[in-house]
């Protein structure tokens, strides 16, 4: 028994070493990326996001969005005449796994990263891309630290900008003076927006009469939060949360006889698609969004049509951001005249300047440009739901 145990552990250990060595040599083959160039004639673009786990919806949307853009670009002759290879890795929205996914992509020979999808993993990964000086472009990570280095840019609005833009919009249009907030305190996205909203609201003279939190573990019963907002006499309730929770809040508020103005952010996009949700409840809901699938814009309609063809569902904002990301990359690469045989670091340096020079018209906004800090400057649109449709205000 003892002997067998020893032998077994020896066998296991040696199996492990062999498997490690195997990976090592794998890395050796694709690992010429360390020296910078893959020597091939394609651009190697990697993507990272959750395709399994709680946030799989967002990761899958981004994966599909990039795929669609890559296919279109490749069909039209590629970038500067070079085709794109694209690979997407799952990170389950976990920082640790995200770094693993990043390293896997590096072994594959990635030259530029589109990702990550969610904020916290992005903060961890940006540390790695900064160390490797690899260009990173996130479609949807909203927290400030997600792009804290000069090699990282983003396509979406940051948390602070969403919060303060919302507060400004409410104050400018004098929608209300007494505001209640219901937010998800276990979510970085939600708390980030809440904090900047509250700061800006104070500066703009909006009175926050109640700010109630819930967590991911208690997101089924909102009666307490709704009752508090109602008792405090709120005229407008700000919901910096995702649509699935928001749909419950709307339904429960209706039962409690509470009918204020509802104001959301981009996470509210998709509320009309919730199964079993009475769409009349969402009547009059306003939210900030860079993308509406029902927009009359030609580019948007073309994108929505081909996305539906390809993947059989209406694209959400994440898919649109990802789709735009890929086209922005194309413009910047063309601007800087980058070729796939350049080293990763040279590419990144060229991209840093090129990104600040491009102006882009896409499905999530027109005339988008980037500053050196990596933040996009684009006009947010406020959308209101009328007659079960999104209408741009």
């Amino acid at each position, binding site marked *: *028994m003892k002997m067998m145990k020893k032998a077994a552990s020896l066998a296991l*250990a040696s199996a492990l070493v062999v498997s490690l060595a195997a990976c090592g040599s*794998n890395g050796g083959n694709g690992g010429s990326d360390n020296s910078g160039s893959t020597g091939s004639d394609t651009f190697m673009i990697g993507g990272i996001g959750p395709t399994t*786990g709680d946030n799989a919806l967002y990761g899958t949307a981004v994966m599909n969005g990039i795929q669609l853009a890559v296919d279109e670009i490749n069909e039209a002759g590629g970038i500067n005449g070079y085709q794109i290879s694209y690979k997407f890795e799952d990170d389950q929205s976990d920082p640790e796994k995200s770094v693993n996914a*990043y390293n*896997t992509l590096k072994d594959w020979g990635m030259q530029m990263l589109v990702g990550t999808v969610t904020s916290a993993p992005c903060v961890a990964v940006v540390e790695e891309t900064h160390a490797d000086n690899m260009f990173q472009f996130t479609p949807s990570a909203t927290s400030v*630290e997600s792009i804290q280095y000069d090699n990282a840019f983003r396509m979406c609005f940051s948390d602070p900008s969403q919060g303060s833009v919302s507060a400004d919009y409410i104050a400018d249009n004098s929608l209300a003076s007494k505001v209640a907030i219901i937010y998800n305190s276990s979510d970085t996205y939600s708390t980030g927006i809440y904090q900047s909203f509250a700061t800006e609201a104070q500066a703009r003279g909006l009175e926050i009469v109640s700010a109630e939190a819930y967590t991911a573990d208690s997101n089924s019963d909102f009666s307490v939060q709704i009752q508090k907002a109602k008792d405090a006499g709120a005229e407008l309730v700000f919901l910096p949360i995702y649509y699935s929770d928001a749909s419950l809040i709307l339904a429960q508020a209706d039962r409690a006889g509470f009918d204020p103005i509802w104001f959301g952010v981009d996470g509210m996009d998709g509320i009309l698609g919730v199964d079993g949700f009475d769409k009349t409840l969402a009547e009059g809901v306003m939210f900030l969004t860079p993308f509406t699938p029902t927009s009359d814009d030609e580019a948007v309609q073309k994108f929505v049509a081909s996305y539906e063809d390809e993947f059989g569902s209406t694209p959400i904002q994440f898919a649109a951001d990802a789709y735009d990301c890929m086209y922005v990359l194309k413009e910047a690469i063309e601007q800087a005249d980058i070729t796939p045989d350049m080293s990763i670091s040279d590419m990144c340096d060229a991209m840093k300047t090129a990104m600040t020079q491009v102006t882009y018209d896409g499905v999530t906004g027109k005339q988008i440009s980037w500053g050196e800090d990596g933040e996009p400057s684009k006009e947010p649109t406020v959308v209101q739901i009328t007659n079960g449709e999104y209408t741009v205000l």
Partner: protein
Amino acid sequence: MLKKLKTMKKTTRSSMITYAIVIVAFIVMQALTYTGNLSSLLQGLLVPLCTYVILAVSLNLVVGILGELSLGHAGFMCVGAFSSAFFSKCMRDVITVAPLRFFLALLIGIAVAAVFGIIIGIPVLRLKGDYLAIVTLAFGEIIKNLVNVLFIGVDSNGFHFSTKDVMGLNMEADGTVIVNGPQGITGTPKDSTFLIGTILVLITLFIVINLTNSRDGRAIMAIRDNRIAAESIGINVTKYKLMAFTISAALAGAAGVLYAHNLSTLSANTNNFGYNMSISILVFVVLGGIGSIRGSMIAAVILTLLPELLRGFADYRMLIYAIVLILMMLFNWAPKAIEWREKYLSFGKRKKEAVK
């Protein structure tokens, strides 16, 4: 040397082999790294592997040696991670020597985790079996949720605390937020290295193996085997239980410190500090063999590597991972499998003795 190895006591020889495995693994990995043969994925995984090995070995102390089922191990890891990351972030500009800063952070993480171990251990260890498991599970969740409502900022007037939001901190304009509730701590210096990780693994092994083979360790195992008999010969049950539990918590704290200083962002969610993590650590211990230090070490390494090596299967990898878990469990523990192994895999040496 070989002769000496043979004349050694069985337990000493066994623990020497365990240390040797770690050292050899370290040397092989370092050699591969320096010759540029190690993939980026594995280079990135080296520190997490050390973290999980420490966690598995430390939980084995409670589950295998003390014989109590604890489902809140990630909670102690969480405490260690957050306290040390808090320290490192505050001291980032004050202490610029990374190893020194990490060493101090490590001491703080271990101390805080040990204190929590004692605080939680005193009431919890009065329970046993299923009740203990449920209460430890709850404590793990409490720690995670407490961290998620904690806001700490610092400005010219000193530290500010709040359990509501950042505005509740009432800081001056120059203040910086250090712990930002659910967003946790961002910007922890990346001080963990594979060398530090390996040293910590060796220290953990040294502590656990020596404790197991000491007088105290035998007392702890006596409690596991028969509590009443142990009490009747004058063993202080509470003291030894608490001792094992606290050491285990402190080691988990060390793993947390390693974890926190490997990523620049630290937030407490179910996957890293909640019950998911506690269960994964328990899986390492159970699959490696309850009570077998070397086994849990190897299981931790294999099970951490597996999902990453299975990336080629895309979305099916977690499914395959689960199937592999079940197969490993059957191979390790099913009576028929044990019989088969003994018959065919005894490697021709010494037919089985009556062990166990």
